[in-house]
């Protein structure tokens, strides 16, 4: 009975997250696209929790909520048609993309049926969070610290890149090194 409920919830999340992921590229407003993407992530977060990786799943949702908001703001700022008044269909190399997407799906989806994966379920899923904590600050301390430093440098880099004052003067001027030629007519 319990397994049946778990299975039902899993398929709900699974179908939901795949359908919403597909809808991301099939909607007329970037805003809706962002909401669909978040729904897809929330579904995956749910599946992660079902698999026992509660911490990862919840952190995924926590992180993605902020990220989607930033994404929505960036889209309204820079992208045209945020309200979805016009149909949105902005693609290139569409056929290649479809083939690549379908191909990678088929290849990856066939893997578990072709490869004989070992069947070793996690013995104590209820301890998973504590184990992760011990791992983070124990054996994998260096990896964890590296991840932290990477994020910090990404943050600083992002601020520097997005800032109005580039390294060689104001960014609108096309902040080139003084010795280089100014940008040609390819601009904007």
């Amino acid at each position, binding site marked *: 009975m319990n397994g049946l409920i*778990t*299975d039902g919830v899993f398929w709900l999340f699974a179908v939901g*997250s*795949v359908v919403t*992921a597909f809808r*991301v*590229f099939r909607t007329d407003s*970037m805003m809706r*696209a962002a909401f669909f993407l978040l729904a897809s992530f929330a579904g*995956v977060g749910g*599946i*992660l929790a079902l*698999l*026992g*990786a509660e911490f*990862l799943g919840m*952190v*995924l949702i926590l992180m993605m909520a902020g*990220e989607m908001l*930033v994404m929505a703001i*960036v889209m309204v700022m*820079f*992208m045209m048609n945020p309200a979805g008044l016009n149909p949105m269909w*902005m693609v290139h190399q569409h056929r290649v*993309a*479809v083939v690549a*997407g379908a*191909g*990678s*799906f088929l290849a*990856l*989806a066939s*893997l*578990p049926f072709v490869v004989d*994966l070992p*069947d*070793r*379920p*996690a*013995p104590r*899923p209820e301890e*998973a969070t504590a*184990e*992760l904590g011990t*791992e983070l600050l124990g054996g*994998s301390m260096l990896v964890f610290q590296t*991840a932290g430093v*990477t*994020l910090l440098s990404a*943050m600083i*880099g*992002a601020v520097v*890149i997005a800032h*109005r004052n580039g390294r060689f003067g104001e*960014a609108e001027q*096309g902040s*080139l090194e003084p010795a280089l030629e100014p*940008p040609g007519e*390819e*601009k904007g």
Partner: protein
Amino acid sequence: MTLEAVLVVAAALFGIGLYGALSQQSFVMLMMGLELMINGGILALAALWSRSAGGNPQGQMLGVVFMTVMAAEMSLGFALITSVYRVRRADITEKLRRLKG
């Protein structure tokens, strides 16, 4: 909720993400594709961790690393979008023929 089922779902997410990343012209939509691919990766990782690798905590650790990559990709991506828009007023890939300056 067998291992195979979860891996198929992960593959579907990855495939959709790859399609989006290759086909979309708009920077942000392109990034959404990338996010979906990483998302599929995390799901596959968690499935293998839980069902096939005996719950080795290093599996979850790898998931944390994936999320770090995701966050770094997002922050730098948005910063680049802002910067490119500031200089070139470009919001789709076709408007960027050179990456310099």
